[in-house]
C-alpha cells in the first residue's frame, strides 16, 4: 500500500515537470521589454503643473523623508515670490526606489517613472541635476495645481481667488 502511494507521488511530480514541456518561461530581458505594473516604482522625476510652471516648491520634505539621503536641494525665490528649487540633485547610485519622496511630496511634483535599471560609466553620472529630472508634463495628475489650493497670493492669483476661498476681509470695518 505504502509503495503504491510512493509511485503515485512520483508520477504526479513527473507530470508537473512534463506539463512544462514546450512552454517558454524565461524572459529575454533586456532585449524584450518588461510588462511592468502601472504602479511600478522607478526613478523620480519632477513634473510641471497645468500652467507649465514647475510644481516643486522646494519644501524639502522629500529630502527629509528619503531613507538613503540621496536628495539634496536648495530653495530659491522668484521675483513674484514663488519658491522653486534652485538646485535639485538626486544621487541615483544611492536611490532605492522606495517611493517615499513621491508620497511625501505635497504638490505632486515628484512622480516615479518606470525606469529603474540604468547603468553608467562613472558614479558621478548617477547624480542627476534638476535639468535632467524636470519633465515637460503633468504626469499622472493632469489637473492639480498646488497654488490654486494654497492661501498664498502668486502672480495673477490674488488673495481670495484660490479654490474654496472667500474674498479678502475688510479689516477696517466694524459692521457685523
Amino acid at each position: 500500500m505504502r509503495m503504491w502511494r510512493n509511485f503515485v507521488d512520483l508520477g504526479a511530480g513527473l507530470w508537473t515537470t512534463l506539463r512544462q514541456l514546450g512552454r517558454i518561461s524565461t524572459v529575454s530581458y533586456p532585449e524584450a521589454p518588461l510588462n511592468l505594473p502601472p504602479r511600478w516604482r522607478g526613478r523620480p522625476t519632477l513634473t510641471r503643473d497645468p500652467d507649465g510652471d514647475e510644481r516643486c516648491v522646494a519644501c524639502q520634505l522629500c529630502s527629509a523623508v528619503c531613507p538613503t539621503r540621496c536628495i539634496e536641494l536648495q530653495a530659491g525665490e522668484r521675483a513674484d515670490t514663488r519658491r522653486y528649487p534652485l538646485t535639485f540633485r538626486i544621487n541615483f547610485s544611492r536611490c532605492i526606489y522606495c517611493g517615499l519622496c513621491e508620497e511625501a511630496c505635497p504638490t505632486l511634483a515628484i512622480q516615479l517613472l518606470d525606469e529603474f535599471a540604468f547603468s553608467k560609466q562613472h558614479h558621478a553620472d548617477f547624480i542627476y541635476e534638476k535639468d535632467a529630472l524636470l519633465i515637460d508634463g503633468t504626469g499622472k495628475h493632469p489637473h492639480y495645481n498646488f497654488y490654486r489650493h494654497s492661501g498664498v497670493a502668486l502672480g495673477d492669483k490674488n488673495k481670495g481667488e484660490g479654490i474654496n476661498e472667500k474674498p479678502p476681509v475688510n479689516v477696517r470695518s466694524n459692521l457685523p
Partner: protein
Amino acid sequence: MKHVFYLDGQEIPFVPGQNVLEATIAAGQDRQIPYFCFHPALGSLGACRQCAVKMYSHDSKHPPRITMACLLPASDDLQLVTLENDVHTEHREIIELLMTNHPLDCPVCDEGGQCHLQDMTVQTGHSVRHYGGPKRTYRNQNLGPLVYQEMNRCITCYRCVRFYQDAALGEDFGVFGSRNRVSFGRLEDGPLESPFSGNLVEVCPTGVFTDKVFRHDYVRVWDLQQGPSVCPHCAVGCNTTPGARLGTLRRIRNRQHPEINGHFLCDRGRYAFPYVTAHSRPLQPRLKGETSRQEAVLRQLASRLEEGRSGFLGSPREDLQSNLGLFALADCLHAPFAAVTSSWAEALAQQCLALPQAPSLQEVAAADRIVVIGDLDSIAPMAGFAVRQALGRGARLTVLASSRTGLARKGDYRPLRPSALRDQVAQLADDPCLQGGRVPVLLATAETLGPSGLYALRKTLEKLPANARAGAFVNRPNLFGAAYFAADGHTERLQQALRQREINHLLCLGADPLGEDWGAGAWRTLSSGLEGFALLDMVDSATARAAEALLPVAAFPERAGLFVNYEGRIQAFAPVYQREAQVLHSAVHGSGFPDAAGGMKHPLGPPSPLFWLGRLAELLHVHEAWQKRLDFYLHFLCPAAPDPDSPGVLLPDTIRARFEIATLPLPPTVGPEQWELDIFRWYGGETLADTAEDLQSLAPLRGLRVHPDVQAASATLQGPCGQLHLPVIPCEDMVQGVIAIDQEGFAELGLYPGDPVEVTWEQEP
C-alpha cells in the same frame, strides 16, 4: 519646602506664583498640555482655550471640571488630568476650530518644521477638517525688509501685539477689525519701526510673521547646523543660535540666557549676520592688493616683523584670545602694543572697567528708578529693551540726552548739551529722579558721556545707596576684554613711536584705524610714516583696502572664542559651521565627486586669528614663548574658561581696582555760544552690520542733524584732522546748539563727542 502638584499622576514641582502651564513647561512635561497664547515672557491670556486640563477636587462633593492651565494658579497637591477622553476631545476640537480657516500652505510656509501650530495639531491628533466651506482670507501688508507677513495663517493668539505693544512698547503695530475678521499689522504698509521687530518671527506660533532675510536663502530647520554663539554686535553679549547650511550662514535666532537676553533679540543681532556672506568680505590672503598664496603673505609679514620696527594694534571688535595672542606676540618681540585706536577711547574703556559691577539686563528690568544717559537704543538695543520691561513694571525713567530718543518719549526727558551731561551726572545723587526707589540703576552710552562723564558717574554711584548699579555700553563686543590688558598710555606710546620713526610697520587685528575707528583722523596723518601695514580682519574696510598684507580671518560663528561683555561677563562661543564655498551647479560630471556624492570637499574658509598669529610666531621662532605667554594671560584672566552652554563667568572685582586710578583726559571746555558735537547712531549701525543689505535699507540718511531753527542746506565742519561737508537734516528732537554726526564723521574730523566745533553754514546743498 518643595511644592508639587500632580499631572496625570506625575509629580510636577512648582514655585508659588507660577501657574500650572508655566510649571509644566518648566518641568519639561509640556507634551501633556497643548497651548498657544501663553508665552514664558509674555504671560497668560486665556484667549486660545487650548491648554485645558481636568481638575479633581479633594472632596467628593464637587465634580471634576475642565479649566485652563495657563489661568490656574499652581497649588499644592492639585490633581490634574489630561489623558481622559473629554479633555482630549476638548484639545482636538479647539484645534479644529483654530484650523478652520488655516490655509494649506505648509509646503510654502517658512515656519514649517518649527511651527507650534503644526506640533500641537499633530500632538492632539486632529487630521481631518469637518468644515468644507470657503476659507477666510486677508490681504498681506508689506512690513519692510525684515519681517514677512502672511495673514491668512493667523490663529489670533495675540502674542504679536502683546510683544510689540506691551513688552517692546512699540506704537506702530496693533490689532484691527472685529470678531472673526481680526487682523494684526500696521495702519499702513511700511517698515516696522521698533528695533525689536524681528522677535515677531519667534513669538508667532505659526507662519504669520516669518523671517524675510532667511526667506531669500531658505532652508528647512531640520537641515540647519546650529550651535551656541554670542552676538558680536554690541557690548551686551546676547546669546544667539546661528543656523548654517552648505557652509553659509542663513539665520540667527535667540538663545535664552536667563540674565541677559531672555527670550528676545534686537534686530541688529538678528539681521546683521550677512557680513559673513558679503561679497566684499576678504576670503583670500592679499599682498599689496593682489590675491596671493598664504605662505607668501606670511613670509612677507614675518620678514617685516623680523626687522623689529613693528607696532601692534588690537581691537575691541575681536575676541579675547585673538587680542591676547597679538599681545603675546608683541610681548615676545618687545614691540609696542595698543588695544584701542585712540587715547580717548582708551580712557573711555578704562573708565568703563573701573565702574563697579554693572547690573545684568534682568536686574535692569527689575529696577524701579532708572536714569538713561544718551541714546541707549541705538548703541545696545537690548539694554533699551530691559528698560522697557522695567517701565512695564512701573519703574520711573529719566533720560538725559541731546535729542528726544525713543526711550525719552517713554519717560521724563531732560534735554541737555553733551558738555552739560557731566555736571548733571555729578549731581544725580541728590536728584529727585532717583529718590524713593528701592533699586536705582544708571545706564549710560559710554561714548556720549565720555571718560570724564563716566568718572563723574562712578563718583555719583559712591554717594548712592549700596544697591545702586551703573552700566556703560558701547557697540563693540569686547571693549572690556581688549582694554583690560592695555595699561595707561599704550595708544599714546604706539603713536609716539610712529611719530618718532621708531616703528615703520603696523600689524592690526580687526581694527580700522584708517576708516571709522575713534582717532582715525590722527592715524591717517601718521600712516604716512608707515612703510606698510598688515591687517587680520573679516570685513572689508578702508584699512583692508590700503593694507600691504591682508590675512582674512574666520567670522565669529565659524570659530571659537571669548567675549567680555559690559558686565565683565566672560562668555564663550563655539564654532557652528565650517565655511565651504557653496557650489550651486555641481562640478562637471566625471571630474570629481560633487558634494552630494560625499566626495570632493570644497576649500574651507579662512582660519581664526590665533592660527595666523601662531604661524607667524613659528616663522619668527618664538612659538614656544608665544604659546606660554598666551596661556598665562588667558589663565590669569579666566582661570576656568567658560563653556559655550554655560552662563559665563564674571571678572572678579579685584581686577577693576587697577583701573580706578587711571588717568583722565581733561574734558573739553565749551562756551555757551559754541556748537557742540554729539554722536548720532541708529540701532542697526555697527561695523559688521554695515554690510547687511536688508538691515541697512532701513538706515537713516547720512547728514548733520541739528535743530530746525538753523536755516541752512548744508554745512562744513572744521576739525583738527580735516573737514567734513554734509547736508543738514533738520531734526525737531535735537537740542539747540548741538550737531549730531555719525562715527565716520568724527573719525574724519578727529574730534570726539562733546567737543566744540567750528561750523560754516551754507545755503547750497
